[in-house]
């Protein structure tokens, strides 16, 4: 399982990274592997305001579909349009070109409640 040391994580397998005052969010390498070939990603509208834990989208493989959940509360300021035509980017580069949304967080303290890479790894492997 690959992890991004600079990112924080959720139990529902999203990662979040700080880029300036904006948070970038996608799904983890572990999640993409479990899903196998991603065939479709549905993303929110730019400008939507969502709360932590709200559903922001859906990701589909051939055999499964999972909801995507907001890691923190905030406004959607960008979505990765490229995923609409190239959903396989989520498989190929989950922490890079496979990013999904950029969030302007409304409650910076929520960042602190997210899992560290070590904590996330532990939650997945159960070790």
């Amino acid at each position, binding site marked *: 399982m690959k992890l991004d040391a600079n990112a924080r994580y959720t139990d529902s397998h999203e990662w979040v990274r700080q880029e300036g005052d904006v948070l970038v969010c996608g799904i983890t390498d572990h999640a993409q592997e479990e899903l196998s*070939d991603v*065939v*479709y990603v549905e993303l929110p509208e730019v400008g939507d305001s969502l709360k932590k834990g709200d559903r922001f989208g859906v990701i*589909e493989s*051939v*055999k499964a579909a999972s909801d995507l959940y907001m890691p923190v509360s905030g406004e959607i300021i960008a979505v990765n349009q490229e995923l609409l035509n190239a*959903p*396989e980017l989520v498989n190929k580069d989950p922490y890079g070109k496979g990013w999904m949304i950029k969030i302007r967080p409304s409650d910076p303290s929520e960042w602190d409640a997210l899992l560290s890479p070590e904590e996330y790894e532990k939650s997945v492997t159960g070790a």
Partner: protein
Amino acid sequence: MSEPLLFELSTPGRTAFTLPSLDVPATPLPEGYLRTDLPLPEVSELELVRHFTRLSQLNYCIDTNFYPLGSCTMKYNPKVNEKAAAIEGLTQVHPLQPEEALQGSLELMYRLQEALKEIAGFAGVSLQPAAGAHGELAGVLMIRAYHRSRGEHQRRKILIPDSAHGTNPASSAMAGLTVVQLPSDKRGNVDLAALKQACDDTVAGLMLTNPNTLGLFEEHVLEVCETVHACGGLMYGDGANLNALLGIARPGDLGFDVMHFNLHKTFSTPHGGGGPGSGPVGVSERLAPFLPGPIVVKEGERFRLHVPEKSIGRVRAFFGNYGMFIRAYTYIRMHGPEGLRAVAEHAVLNANYLKALVSPHFPVAVERTCMHEFVVHGDIPGTDVRALDVAKRLIDYGFHPPTNYFPLIVRDALMIEPTETESRQTLDAFAQALAAIAHEARTDPALLHEAPHTTPVSRLDEVKAARTPVLCYKG
């Protein structure tokens, strides 16, 4: 040697149809309302016949071989059913004809309602729903309407075991209920402790498949029904597995309040490549006023359409998949009470016999006497062979794969339902094929990964189909 599409066979100007010429004076066509083009295929009758005949030959079907699909009850579809359902006086009738011009059809529907009531121990039956999932929707809508009629608007929670068919939660969600999943215990039953904890005055009901999707009879079924009833909830029975219970037990007696029948499973109407099915609902006394209508009632010697007083309404236009009613009625009449019991006995005998032959090679998920089906782990430990590979390799041996990766609670599930119409020889041959495949998995796993080898096409690229959907001919 793939078969071209009709559009590719098309030749401009070619026709197949013959129709009578116009025998009345023509009327000007309404200008501004007309279409300019109708780009349908242009083929001759012979091209058409060859095309669809060739397509048919690309299909696997019950008429050619064994179809051990768990939860689907792919039994033999008797040919007399088809003959019955083609009797002109029964089928060439319009659903809106006056009742007096429809007495034969109404009587047939009435007799089927009565037979289904008797078989499953219910007070009322509506034949309207067109399929199992449609019956489920009608059932949960009735449960909701029942609670509302008693002022219990807060009952919005529906309990569904983790082994349930996907239609159960989907139907409940459509009816506006919130799904709460219940775990199964080690013997494959509903976890009673979890059930008791979930039961409160917000429970609308519990949807239970019995026998469940592991093929096991719910050992605590009476206690489950009592627990749900004690908290004011109702019991929904998913009748998909009724084939195991004909003449063995009546869901109504056990405490179920509502259940759908799958005429296309239990009562031998053909699956038709995905439908039509038929999903009548049966209900206990207290839900009878809520049945979707119209149903047929008998008054003296006359049969009449009737909408129950608190009916949830229609769930489709007209009366249901009536053509399936004729087939199912024929099937029930040809068996009689002893014959129906023999159906269940032999379905269960076949499943247990096959389980005994298969389990040395593929371990059974829960080791108990099963009912009409059983579930094994389809992966081969120590290899990278998965249930899907085993399923696909079976095709090369001439067998349709079992249901796979369902129920979701079993790792690499293969769900096998032989039905009563298969002979011992067929079961032996199927078990031998599985044994041979288990051996191949260890000696030549690539053979399985690449399977099937004998079909018109090999494994298809489902990822490509989903990433760039081509859903119609665009030429």
